[in-house]
């Protein structure tokens, strides 16, 4: 029997520039959104996604042919892309939107990712060049919508493995074994490639970008596109009426005696359990 050609993997990792999780969020005075003039960094779940792609390459070596990072956002999102490149992605795609526009909704993001995949696959010279794995965060910590991965799998008609805490890929069989975080435990599923994986916190611990890799990242290619280039319209389907801070927590009080505490509990409607 002739040995079959080695199946090669092309991984796409969408990443989002989000307000850093260490920053205290403040609502703007007009109550239309949050104060965006604060430190941003890569959405932590996306960082895990990049790390997983890089680890897959370390494990499968030459079988991972390419890792492409994709971001949608204003000019500053280029920094986020550079971080992904410094962590180990080979090239980047930046779908640029004006600084003033709000970030696109999940469906628009999913459509963008699909458009990028279709573009790449159309240009592919052979099966080996086609994107067969998308790894992305299960949610972004700014809007917490958590649906992009699922929508993408639906649009593409691909397998989906969400909330992954472990990913193993068998490139020859074109199969993946994924452990998912579910209520009360873990679920192990086997799926066929092509596949959309969304990452959960326990999947891995992302590495720091090392200096030599930061230097190399500066020379890696980044393609710039606009939504129009992809035939997409980012007009929102949702309207934000008002953004408000949660009500301020009222501090507790001190009581002098147990009787006083009991009286207060009774006032609040609590009653002793009848034996």
């Amino acid at each position, binding site marked *: 029997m002739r040995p079959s050609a080695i199946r090669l993997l092309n991984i796409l990792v969408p990443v989002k520039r989000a307000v*850093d*999780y*260490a*920053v205290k969020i403040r609502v703007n005075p007009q109550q239309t959104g949050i104060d965006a003039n604060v*430190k941003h*960094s*890569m959405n*932590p779940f996306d960082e895990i996604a990049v790390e997983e792609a890089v680890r897959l390459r370390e494990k499968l070596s030459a079988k991972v042919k390419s890792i492409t990072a994709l971001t949608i956002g204003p000019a500053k999102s280029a920094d986020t892309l550079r*971080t992904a490149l*410094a962590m180990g992605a080979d090239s980047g795609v930046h779908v640029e939107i004006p600084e003033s526009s709000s970030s696109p909704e999940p469906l628009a993001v999913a459509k963008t990712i699909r458009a990028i995949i279709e573009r790449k696959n159309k240009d592919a010279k052979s099966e080996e060049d086609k994107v067969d794995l998308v790894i992305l965060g299960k949610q972004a910590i700014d809007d917490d919508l958590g649906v992009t991965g699922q929508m993408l799998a639906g649009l593409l008609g691909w397998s989906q493995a969400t909330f992954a805490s472990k990913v193993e890929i068998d490139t020859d069989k074109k199969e993946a074994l994924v452990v998912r975080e579910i209520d009360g435990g873990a679920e192990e599923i086997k799926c066929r490639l092509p596949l959309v994986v969304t990452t959960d916190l326990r999947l891995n*611990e992302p*590495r*720091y*970008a*090392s*200096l*030599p890799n*930061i*230097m190399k990242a500066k020379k890696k290619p980044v393609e710039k596109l606009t939504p129009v280039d992809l035939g997409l319209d980012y007009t929102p389907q949702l309207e934000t009426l008002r953004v408000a801070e949660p009500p301020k927590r009222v501090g507790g009080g001190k009581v002098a005696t147990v009787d006083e505490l009991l009286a207060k509990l009774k006032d609040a409607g609590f009653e002793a359990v009848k034996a």
Partner: protein
Amino acid sequence: MGRYHGRSTTVLKPRSTHEVSQILKWCNQRRIGVVPQGGNTGLVGGSVPVNNEIILSLANLNNVRSFDPVSGILVADAGCILQSLTDYVAPHNHIMPVDLGAKGRHSHSCQIGGNVATNAGGLRLLRYGSLHGTVLGLEVVLPDGTILDQLTTLRKDNTGYDLKQLFIGAEGTLGVITAVSILTPPAPQASNNVVLALPSFDNVLPLYQTVKRQLSEILSAFEFIDRTAYDLAVKHGQGRALTEEDVEGAECFVLIETSGGRREHDEEKLNDLLESLLTAEKPLVNTGVLAQSPSQFSSLWALREGVTEAVSKEGKPYKYDISIPLSTFQSVVDGTREHLRSKGLLHDKAVKYVIGYGHVGDGNLHLNIIADSYLPEIEAALEPYIYEVVASHRGSISAEHGIGAMKTHALHYSKSPVAIELMKKIKHVLDPNGIMNPGKVLE
């Protein structure tokens, strides 16, 4: 640290400078010893009574008296907690010139009066200088109850002896600091950090020179961690570790922090520096990592700040906080380890690790000897050995922790008989009955 236990029966918590004055007057007349106490976070037992002295807690003197957002001058009661002062000046875009580590319990409980009384150093000293420079004025109650009001807010005042300097670092042996006037610097608009892995300690000094020259005014910290200290910090979960590949062959690590007014400017400078370091013909560094986000920034700091906590988790630490010439950092650490080995004390049941870390920029080395348990043999092997080594380099046996009760017997290793005699005379003039923090600083 559980090494000092007081035996006092009385704690007084005055609410005003006047009350402090009344208490001292009363105690002075009756010759009752008084131990001023702030957050009680000191490392050398300076705030712990040695006999049955009265403890004078400054905790209820905790109001900010004034803050001028133009000059940045803050006047606050001695009992104000450092962290709450940091929070107070933050909305005005200022920071406290002293920072004892963001993670540690210190900044959340230590008080500004205690910081000044012990002349605390910390992580920002390289940038903002010592409290001898940033403190502009003090209000001090003298042992006889007299209030010495020097709470001025002047940057310049050349009128006679600068008396406040006597009380900065006197560890409460000359009087009780009740209020502080301090110059707070404007908050940096951008900060960044990087951890570099070095093949040899010999590269630290040339690296420091290069970094100072290239980063110039934005350099705000240059910290050193030896390999053992780094490994311990990682072992005890202090901050995310670098990859195996990055730490391979590294003998020590350097953490560099920049703080400046404009992100793009700082990043450009830092990138130029890193590029020149990596592409040099004979590179001083193996590799390194650059924080990509505020969370990575704190994670990298945790590797350095977390050493203290890791040390306490690992065993019983003997902590030496010494000032010595930079070039001798490594040889002092290695020398101490060899000395303990020659005494047969370097094994699992005695001394487990000898580590060095600290503030390169300030010439301040933290030499920690981590033992399985506190043993008299270990102490005998360490002292006076370490003090003699320090004295041979004309160093200081206490760079930033003070003398307290722990090191009074060793003061002569850093101060000449003439100096000690003069200190005793000053002490006698101000506190003839010897009621202020007896047994501390001077024997």
